[in-house]
C-alpha cells in the first residue's frame, strides 16, 4: 500500500510538472473566450441571465472601479473576509454560494483576458447557447390537402337530387302538353314517393341487386369498423393516435439528436409497472441552463418555467406552480395488466419494440396497435432471454428437463405461460 502510494505520488509529481509546463505554454496562446468557457461559464453568463452566479452584463458599471474585479476573481474569500462592503453584499445576494478561488489557477494576465472578453462578448455568443444551429432542419407540418371525399359524395348527391327534381316537373309538363295535343286526358302530377314506388315495381331485378350490394357492403364495413373499436391505430396506414401535447416536446430532438437515454426521463421504467411521465424537476435539470430551443425559441421552454414556478430572471423557484397536463398516448384498457419492469428488466425488451422509434418522432405517436392479438403474436415468436438471466435459472432447468432430447425447441414466451389468461387479466 505504502509502496503503491509513493509510486503514485512520484508519477503524479511528474504529471503535475508536465501539466504545469503544458499549461504555462498553452495558456499564452489561449484567449479570453476559451478561458471564460473553461473557468467561468459553468456559473456565469455574459448576458444578464442568472445561472448559479449572477449574469455579467453591465458588471463594469455595477462593480467598484479599480482592481476590485480582479481581486474578487482571484480570491473572493479574502475579499469577503476583509470586510469589503460590495463583496459582502453580492455574497449575501447570491445565497452565500461560494465562488471558486482562482488564485494559483489563473494569472493576472488570464484575468485581464477574461475581463476583456466579458466587456465585449461576441454578439452571437450573447444570443444564448440554444440559438438554432446552421442547417437545423425545420420540420414541415403535413399539409392536409383536398376536401374530404365524403363531402364530395354528399355534394354530388345533392346536385343530382336538384336536377332530378327539376327534370321531373319538366317531364310532367311536357307529357301534359303532348297529351293535350293528342286530345288525351291530362294526368295529375304524382308525388315523389308514388313515382318511386311505381319505378320500383317496374324494376324489381334492378332494385334487388342494388339492395344486396348495399346490405353486404354495409355489413363488411361494419365488420371492419369493429377492428377499430377501442384501438387508436389505423391498420392500413399504420398510423396511430398522435395527440397534440400541451408543450411541443420533441422526442427526436431530446432522445435522437441529443442522445438522452429514454430512462433519464422515464426513470421508473426499470423499477415500476409504469414507465412514468417525468415530473417537471427532471425537465429543469437541463432547462435551468438551456433557455432557448432550436425550433420554438423561448416560447415552449417558458411553459416549463410556468409549470415549475421558475423565474429565469432570478434563477429561483418563486412563481406559482401549474402542473403540465400531458396527454397519455399509449393506453391499455383497465382490465389489462401490463408491467414495464417485467418486460424491460427481465424480458430485456427494447423500448422501440412497442413504442416505435421515438428517436425519429417529433410528436409522439402510437406506432403499434396494442391489441391483444398483437400481444399474443409477440409472445408466440419472442424467445425468452434465459441465458445469463438469473431470473429464469429455475425455469430454464425445468424446461431443459421437459424437452430433453429435442433440439429445435425454442423457448418462446408462450412456452412459459405467456398465453395464460390470468397473466394479464385478473
Amino acid at each position, binding site marked *: 500500500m505504502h509502496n503503491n502510494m509513493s509510486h503514485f505520488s512520484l508519477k503524479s509529481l511528474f504529471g503535475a510538472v508536465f501539466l504545469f509546463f503544458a499549461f504555462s505554454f498553452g495558456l499564452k496562446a489561449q484567449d479570453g473566450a476559451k478561458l471564460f468557457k473553461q473557468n467561468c*461559464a459553468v456559473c456565469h453568463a455574459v448576458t444578464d441571465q442568472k445561472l448559479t452566479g449572477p449574469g455579467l452584463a453591465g458588471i463594469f458599471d455595477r462593480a467598484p472601479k479599480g482592481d476590485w474585479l480582479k481581486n474578487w476573481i482571484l480570491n473572493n474569500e479574502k475579499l469577503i473576509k476583509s470586510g469589503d462592503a460590495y463583496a459582502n453584499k453580492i455574497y449575501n445576494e447570491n445565497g452565500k454560494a461560494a465562488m471558486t478561488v482562482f488564485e494559483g489557477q489563473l494569472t493576472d494576465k488570464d484575468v485581464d483576458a477574461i475581463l476583456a472578453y466579458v466587456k465585449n462578448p461576441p454578439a452571437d455568443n450573447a444570443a444564448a447557447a440554444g440559438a438554432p444551429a446552421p442547417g437545423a432542419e425545420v420540420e414541415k407540418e403535413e399539409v392536409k390537402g383536398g376536401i374530404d371525399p365524403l363531402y364530395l359524395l354528399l355534394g354530388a348527391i345533392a346536385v343530382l337530387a336538384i336536377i332530378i327534381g327539376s327534370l321531373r316537373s319538366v317531364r310532367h309538363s311536357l307529357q301534359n302538353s303532348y297529351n293535350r295535343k293528342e286530345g288525351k286526358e291530362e294526368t295529375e302530377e304524382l308525388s315523389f314517393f308514388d313515382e318511386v314506388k311505381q319505378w320500383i315495381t317496374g324494376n324489381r331485378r334492378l332494385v334487388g341487386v342494388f339492395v344486396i350490394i348495399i346490405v353486404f357492403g354495409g355489413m363488411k364495413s361494419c365488420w371492419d369498423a369493429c377492428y377499430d373499436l377501442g384501438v387508436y391505430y389505423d391498420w392500413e396506414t399504420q398510423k396511430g393516435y398522435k395527440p397534440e401535447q400541451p408543450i411541443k416536446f420533441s422526442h427526436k430532438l431530446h432522445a435522437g439528436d*441529443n442522445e438522452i437515454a429514454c430512462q433519464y426521463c422515464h426513470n421508473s421504467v426499470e423499477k415500476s409497472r409504469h414507465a412514468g411521465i417525468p415530473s417537471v424537476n427532471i425537465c429543469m435539470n437541463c432547462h435551468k441552463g438551456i433557455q432557448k430551443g432550436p425550433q420554438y425559441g423561448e416560447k415552449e421552454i417558458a411553459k416549463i418555467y410556468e409549470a415549475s414556478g421558475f423565474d429565469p430572471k432570478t434563477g429561483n423557484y418563486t412563481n406559482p406552480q401549474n402542473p403540465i397536463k400531458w396527454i397519455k398516448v399509449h393506453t391499455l384498457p383497465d382490465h389489462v395488466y401490463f408491467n414495464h419492469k417485467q418486460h424491460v428488466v427481465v424480458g430485456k425488451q427494447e423500448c422501440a419494440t412497442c413504442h416505435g422509434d421515438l428517436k425519429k418522432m417529433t410528436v409522439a405517436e402510437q406506432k403499434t396497435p396494442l391489441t391483444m392479438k398483437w400481444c399474443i403474436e409477440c409472445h408466440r415468436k419472442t424467445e425468452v432471454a434465459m441465458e445469463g438471466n438469473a431470473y429464469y435459472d429455475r425455469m430454464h432447468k425445468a424446461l431443459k428437463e421437459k424437452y430433453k432430447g429435442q433440439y429445435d425447441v425454442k423457448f418462446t414466451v408462450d412456452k412459459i405461460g405467456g398465453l395464460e389468461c390470468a397473466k394479464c387479466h385478473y
Partner: protein
Amino acid sequence: MNLSYKNLKLITCGTVAVMLVAGFTSCGKKDANSPGFEFMPDMYRSPSVEYYGTHIVNGDTVNSAKLPVQGSIARGYVPYVYPNTPEGYEQAGLYLKNPLAYSESLEKEGEVLYGKFCIHCHGANGGGDGKVGAKLPGPPPAYDGPLKNLPEGKIFHSITYGKNSMGSHASQLTQEERWKLVYFVQKLQGPKTVVSDSVKVNAATEPKKL
C-alpha cells in the same frame, strides 16, 4: 356487344351502389388528435384512481399526479444529514464515505447508470463533452480535470442536491444507485493527485450521527 338496355341499367345501378358503399367506408379517416371510439368504457376505465389522470372523488376534482404526503419516507430510504449549503458540501466531502464495499460488478452497474443518467452532459469519458453539455451555458468540468480530486462525499452530495447548472438527481436515482455511480465517476477521475481533501471545515462541525 350484345348488351340490352335492361342489362346496361343493371350494371350501372350496381356500379353506383358499390361506389356508394366504398365512398362511405373510405371516409372514416382518423383524426390524429382523437383517441377513436371506445367500446364499453366501463371496462376500460375502472372507478379506481389511476396513476396519471384527473378523477372526481367525493365531488372534488383530484389530479392523481401528486407529491407524496409531506414527511413520507420511501422504503429503503436512509436520511441524508448534510444540508444543501456550501457548509454541507464541505462536510460531505470530509466525512461522507461510500457505504458499499467496492467490487468490479458495482462499478459496472455504475457504468450502466452513467450511460443513462450522466453521459449526455458529462460525456462518455467524463470530459464534460456530452451533446447536452455543449448546449449548456457552460459545459460541466472534466472529471480528470478540475474535478480530479473531488472526494466521494462531494460527488454524492452533488448528485443528491445538484451543483451549479446541474439539478438534483435524487428523484431519479436511489441512494444505492448514486453510490454505484460514485465508483464509476472515481474510475473516470483516475488516480488522485492529492491524497486528502483540503481541510476547510474543522472537526467540530462534524454532523451528529443518527
